[in-house]
């Protein structure tokens, strides 16, 4: 049985919008096990990005705990959180977030350079492995501005994977792509998940993309309203509607 690597316990998030208090999360709890390919699904403003941000250590819950591999990240300081983002979790962003002045190779190599423990040769091997995996070997010298949306997201996927993180978080990774490209990107993520066992959690509001996930956590108005696990596209026993 796969090991639980992420536990979210009664996550709540409140913030002020002007003078109005907004409850983005109203008490969300779930567990992610190693090797999952899960979607957090829901309409805009439902709180799915907020959940990813908390798991990704870039936002804090107002209350509740995020426990990654046994560590409650709520108690970590800025340096420790940075280290977590460098080693443990990786992000794929909706807007790709590539560094515009770096080419494809350099963008993918950047997290390895930040980690500072790899030799040039090691970095090269890792970068080339993922460049091949995302199919951009012929685009190494291109800057992000010279790539299509799909290609940029492939670079972002390679960048997220290159350090070998425990979990890859993707915030609406297909939102800025056309449907076909979106499907291809999700299929790419899925194949990496299948081949390497990397855990993926992505948020989406697109039903077609949702279908690709093996587990779908449905969220609305800051609450989980469903959590279903599928086997090769079928809903399986044990899934539930909340």
């Amino acid at each position: 049985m796969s090991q639980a690597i992420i536990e979210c316990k009664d996550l709540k998030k409140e913030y002020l919008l002007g003078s109005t208090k907004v409850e983005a999360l109203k008490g969300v709890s779930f567990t992610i096990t190693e090797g999952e390919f899960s979607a957090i699904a829901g309409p805009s403003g439902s709180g799915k990005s907020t959940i990813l941000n908390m798991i990704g250590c870039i936002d804090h819950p107002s209350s509740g705990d995020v426990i990654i591999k046994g560590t409650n990240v709520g108690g970590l300081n800025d340096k420790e959180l940075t280290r977590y983002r460098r080693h443990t979790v990786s992000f794929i962003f909706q807007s790709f977030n590539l560094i515009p002045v770096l080419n494809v190779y350099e963008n993918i190599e950047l997290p390895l350079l930040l980690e500072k423990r790899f030799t040039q040769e090691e970095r090269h091997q890792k970068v080339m492995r993922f460049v091949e995996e995302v199919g951009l070997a012929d685009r190494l010298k291109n800057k992000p501005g010279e790539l299509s949306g799909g290609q940029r997201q492939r670079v972002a996927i390679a960048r997220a994977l290159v350090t070998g993180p425990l979990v890859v978080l993707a915030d609406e990774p297909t939102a800025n792509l056309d449907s076909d490209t979106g499907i291809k990107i999700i299929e790419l993520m899925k194949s990496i998940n299948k081949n390497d066992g990397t855990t993926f959690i992505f948020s989406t509001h697109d039903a077609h993309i949702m279908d690709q996930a093996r587990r779908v956590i449905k969220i609305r108005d800051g609450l989980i309203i469903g959590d279903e696990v599928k086997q090769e596209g079928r809903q399986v026993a044990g899934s539930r509607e909340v």
Partner: protein
Amino acid sequence: MLTFMIALRSLRRRKGRMILIGSLVVLGTVIIVFGTTFSQSAKVFSKASIIENFTGDFILYSQRSRELPSPFAFQTPLPLIEKADQVEAWLAKQPQVASFSSIAQNYGLISLQKDGISYELPFIFYAVQAEAYRAMLGKVKMSSGTWFGEGSAQVQPGILISEYQNQQYKQKYGVTIAAGDKVTLLSLTGGGSVNALPSDVVGIFDPQFYKNVFNYINFMDIGTYAQLFNFTGVTALPENFNQALAASSDDDIFALADDDMLGSLNTDLLEKAELTGYTMIAVRLAQGVSTEAFAQTLAAAGFPIKLARWDEASGFFASVADILQGVILGATLLIFLIVVFILMNTQIINVLERTGEVGTYRAIGADKSFVRSLFLWESVILNVAAASIGMIISLVLIISFSGGISLPEIMSQYLVGGGQLRLQLSIMPFVLGLALVLLVSLLATLYPIRVATKVSPLAAMSAK
């Protein structure tokens, strides 16, 4: 080097804005480097000009004087130097002394008749030993006549009048003096009497340096001066003369009457003294001799005189180059202050525009020092590159003007005493320029860096 590389490329990506800021830094650098070179060269030339035209390395003056001497000022008459002839004799024997020239500053009247009209013209003058002064300090161009008969066997006594002074006479009194004119010089002596002495106008001159001073100063040979102001005599009368003069009772006077020698004066017994009336002695030291070292030797000699260094004796004129340097530094600091604010403002906009990018760095594992280093490099690269361009431009300008810059006459006279200013290449202005630019970079980047390091990784989510 990762941050250096990203910073460099980020700057290239924002070329337009960076060229604008860089241009300001280039301008500031040119002003500081060229300006400092200019003022330093002016200082060197000013010093040389003052030493070679007015003061020598220092001026000796009476110990009784409460004021510093100045060849430039006539407001306060200086006390006469006591035993000036002995001081001169001592100076002549000192191997550290290259040359010296004694000067008496005074004023009088020139009385002359032209076309049946009498004129009495005021004039201030230096009374000088013609040859010594001419050789050491007297760099004037003779318009007519000669420098006290220069080139002939003997000094031609009389006075020299400056061209400017002559023009003033024409404007105010309607008369012009010419070389060869016979005049009568009038003086008010220390004893309160008025002396008159027939004399000649030996020449008309045009000062070549510090015209703003020397246009108003004329010259008189020391022999004429001594006669005009009663500075000739003996050191002491015979003892019996002194007793007679000191007699306080009738008995004493009658006792002296028995002295056969009283009433006759044996001039052979009189010790002649040169009572020159000098108020200043300008001294040039031999190469390598310091004024401080010579001052100790002088103090040991025990003369009742004091020493004023060239810069003390030249007052305002010695500080003109310093004032200019201050103005240049002030202007530069003002420009750099503006640059600091523009740079800071631009950097803050830069950070705000790039919050998504900064957030991305943080989200993928960059710590705050990475962000700090990135923005610091951007500032340093931009400023050092701009400063380098500024320095190259300055270097070209300095080399171009090393043959001499023609300054406006009034500026040239006050700054370097007249003539062209040749710029002298020196490393210091370049070091100063670079140091200032680096300081500006640092100051202008501190706050933007603070803003950048406070960008949350969450900002990556809002990146477009």
